[in-house]
């Protein structure tokens, strides 16, 4: 804005000097004189962008040729951990929420859309009605832009994005971040997650019939039970059982950033982890271990017709805060008051207990905000 205002002023001054018949070649009032520092900054940003594009292209080529990405911690990742990412994120939030002049809004929003491949035709409002970049970023879409799959036996995508991982959780209850490195689901969702309890309860019924000494250990995880009683687990695995599946979806900056309900379900609990705010792009997944477990996130847990369901919305540096429509009072990406990271997540059980908040397939649940 500063640059644009300055350019606007210098253009006006130039116009005045031309009209006044001034033919001085002095730098004062020259409309084409852009400060050297600005040019240098633009060139540097251009070079960094070109380098990043080249790096992304190499990654795509490597993936197409069947090469799996592996974890490669580097100096940049270590440097990132030293940066005040939360402050940077909050600063970016305040910059992006600056109200733009009406004449500038279409240009600014089109520039963003062009840079990050957003489809402007889907935006619900004309571009000049989004007062800031932040407002534009969380735009709603025109009616019918995202038809909901009507099959009652389908689970829909809650967001627009790119599928990073899909699969079934096996014995380890781990999700692979990149080749050779996985993170634990219970670390992602929280140690007090319903996940092991609900998975274990079915198994525990069988166990309790055969081994009474396991009956009291109601909070044992699936993993511990599988280690403690492999024979029992084999017998239970001979009958149909419900599997645990997972899906990881990455949202690019240009994507529609509202989160919807993937099925009809009851949200029983919300858990907020005030972690770090690392970027979550592809490079970060290769260089930062436990990226999703480290970052600030909001986890919703509940039940649907087939059993357990949980949805974790993970923030990043540029998109640090998560707004829940079912709990507008929840504030995320808050300034840190303590120097040490608090490990315990903040939890809320939704009322009435056992029923919680009912959501229908396709209902809006949350939105990722800039900063």
């Amino acid at each position, binding site marked *: 804005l500063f640059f644009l205002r300055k350019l606007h002023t210098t253009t006006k001054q130039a116009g005045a000097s031309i009209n006044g018949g001034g033919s001085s070649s002095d730098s004062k009032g020259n409309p084409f004189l852009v400060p050297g520092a600005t040019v240098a900054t633009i060139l540097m940003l251009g070079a960094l962008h070109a380098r990043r594009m080249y790096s992304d292209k190499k990654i795509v080529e490597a993936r197409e040729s069947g090469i799996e990405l592996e974890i490669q911690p580097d100096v940049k990742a270590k440097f990132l951990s030293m940066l005040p990412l939360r402050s940077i994120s909050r600063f970016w939030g305040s910059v992006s929420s600056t109200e733009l002049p009406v004449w500038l809004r279409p240009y600014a929003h089109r520039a963003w859309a062009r840079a990050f491949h957003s489809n402007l035709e889907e935006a619900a409002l004309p571009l000049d009605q989004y007062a800031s970049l932040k407002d534009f970023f969380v735009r709603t879409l025109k009616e019918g832009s995202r038809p909901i799959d009507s099959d009652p036996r389908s689970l829909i995508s809650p967001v627009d994005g790119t599928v990073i991982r899909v699969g079934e959780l096996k014995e380890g209850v781990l999700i692979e971040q990149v080749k050779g490195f996985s993170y634990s689901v219970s670390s992602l969702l929280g140690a007090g997650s319903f996940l092991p309890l609900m998975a274990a309860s079915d198994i525990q019924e069988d166990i309790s019939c055969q081994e009474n000494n396991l009956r009291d250990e109601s909070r044992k995880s699936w993993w511990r039970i599988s280690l403690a009683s492999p024979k029992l687990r084999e017998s239970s695995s001979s009958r149909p059982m419900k599997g645990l599946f997972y899906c990881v979806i*990455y949202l690019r900056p240009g994507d529609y950033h509202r989160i919807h309900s993937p099925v009809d379900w009851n949200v029983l609990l919300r858990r907020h982890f005030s972690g770090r705010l690392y970027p979550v792009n592809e490079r970060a997944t290769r260089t930062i271990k436990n990226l999703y477990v480290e970052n600030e996130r909001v986890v919703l847990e509940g039940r649907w017709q087939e059993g357990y369901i949980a*949805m974790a*919305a993970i923030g990043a540096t540029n998109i640090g805060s998560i707004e829940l429509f079912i709990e507008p009072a929840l504030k995320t990406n808050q300034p840190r008051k303590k120097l040490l990271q608090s490990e315990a997540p903040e939890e809320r059980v939704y009322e009435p207990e056992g029923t919680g908040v009912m959501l229908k397939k396709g209902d809006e649940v949350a939105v990722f905000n800039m900063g």
Partner: protein
Amino acid sequence: STVVLVFQAPALKKQEDEASSSEFKFCVERGDKIRMGEALGRWHD
């Protein structure tokens, strides 16, 4: 930003077979672009 979904869905495991013959099937693969409302997966009786 990223969204992770973890859910139970109908699955069938056979003792003699290591691989589970799941009744729930994903409609998407790694690297696919997906839009909100499109099916991630379906299940059958």
